[in-house]
């Protein structure tokens, strides 16, 4: 029985069953005498249990046929560069923020596929890069909107307005230029009183008419996007879906109206 003093490191050892048997009683006494440490230990224990529960179901899932086939030597061999890794690489390039980005898959939608998916991915990447930047999210702030939109319009080749989203609680922080596929896109950033940020990404884009929502399979912000009459636009943020929808519709109307292309 040692009279050694314990530290928060021992919490991990105890939790993982690595504390020697003969130290456990003393450790328990130490915990009782240190409410902070006890609380910490309980939180970690709860997290551990949550993690285990969360993934326990995977063991019950039927094993995909392709995995058994590999072992039985029946499966068709896959291409050298495996999809998961290419997707993860592409996603990391796009996301450029957050270690979580390492791991992204792409929602089952092929990389570099349809132009609207691609646009949504770029918009999310831009949002994740710049909206997360506390101090310098924009190049030109929103105080002089005429200057901001003039500059962005000129560089993107679009007639742009900065939508007024104050009804949704968002004020314009400003904007910046971001690279798009072979062109230049405008990114306008907004923040609400809670510090939530959303971005409006606009780029001159194709002639298809599409709309939809897009989220990387790894999670992260959602893009509500559309393409119409040479405009591609995505509203990106992490708001609840209904709020995202409201904000996006609001922004859409104003952008289209501003472009002199009001249509329903």
């Amino acid at each position, binding site marked *: 029985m040692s009279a050694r003093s314990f530290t928060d490191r021992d919490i991990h050892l105890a939790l993982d069953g690595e504390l020697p048997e003969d130290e456990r009683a003393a450790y328990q006494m130490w915990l009782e005498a240190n409410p902070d440490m006890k609380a910490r230990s309980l939180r970690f224990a709860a997290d551990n249990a949550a993690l285990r529960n969360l993934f326990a179901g995977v063991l019950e899932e039927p094993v995909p046929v392709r995995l058994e086939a590999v072992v039985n030597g029946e499966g068709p061999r896959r291409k050298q560069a495996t999809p998961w890794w290419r997707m993860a690489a592409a996603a990391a390039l796009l996301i450029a923020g957050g270690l*979580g980005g390492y791991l992204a898959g792409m929602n089952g939608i092929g990389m570099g596929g349809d132009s609207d998916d691609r646009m949504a991915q770029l918009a999310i990447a831009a949002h994740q890069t710049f909206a997360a930047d506390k101090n310098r999210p924009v190049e030109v702030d929103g105080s002089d909107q005429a200057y901001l939109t003039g500059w962005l319009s000129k560089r993107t080749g679009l007639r742009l307005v900065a939508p007024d989203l104050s009804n949704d609680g968002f004020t314009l922080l400003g904007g910046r230029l971001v690279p798009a596929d072979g062109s230049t896109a405008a990114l306008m950033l907004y923040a609400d009183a809670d510090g939530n940020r959303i971005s409006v990404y606009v780029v001159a884009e194709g002639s298809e008419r599409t709309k939809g929502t897009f989220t990387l399979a790894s999670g992260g912000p959602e893009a509500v996007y559309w393409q119409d009459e040479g405009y591609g636009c995505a509203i990106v943020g992490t708001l609840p879906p209904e709020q995202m929808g409201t904000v996006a519709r609001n922004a859409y109307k104003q952008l289209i109206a501003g472009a002199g292309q009001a249509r329903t």
Partner: protein
Amino acid sequence: MARRLRGAGKARSIGVEEDGLRSAVMDEKKAAILQEIPRLRRYARALLRDRDSADDLVQDSLERALLRMDNWRTGESPRRWLFTIMHHLFIDQMRKVSRRGEAAILPLEASEALATPAIQAESVASREIVDALQQISPDRRAALVMVAIEGFSYAEAATMLGVPAGTLMSRIARGREELRGLLDDQARRRAIRIVEK
């Protein structure tokens, strides 16, 4: 070796060259590997979150394992052998991803980590944990998952991850603390929103 590689997709091409005894051992080994697939899938899912990506990692690991059956000594736990293979593949790929120019990745705000379901019927709380887990570094995540979810001992995990015990311990401690910090941040943000509503 090149010949083995080409033929590796078919068990029969090996079987033809081996005598009956070896092929029986082979079958036994394959059966043992098959049994480990659920565990491998769980580990991969915790590492990668996305279901298809995780299964791709498992498939890569199984393919590599079958090419290297000789490295697995009879009597040795197939589990540790397979986990080791999978971990190396995981870390290799993570490094390749980061070499592609994204080494200077900034930590995401916890608020950025809304999610698409990786696990069916995810609650907000479980989604937050999955998100937070994905935000900690691959090394720490692997260590934490091996011990906390897969239930390996520190000694086993250290061997499989190929790091000294001290390194493993600090990865687990930091990983767990980081995870809790991320969850606390999310809880705080939620509380602020509720208060302001």
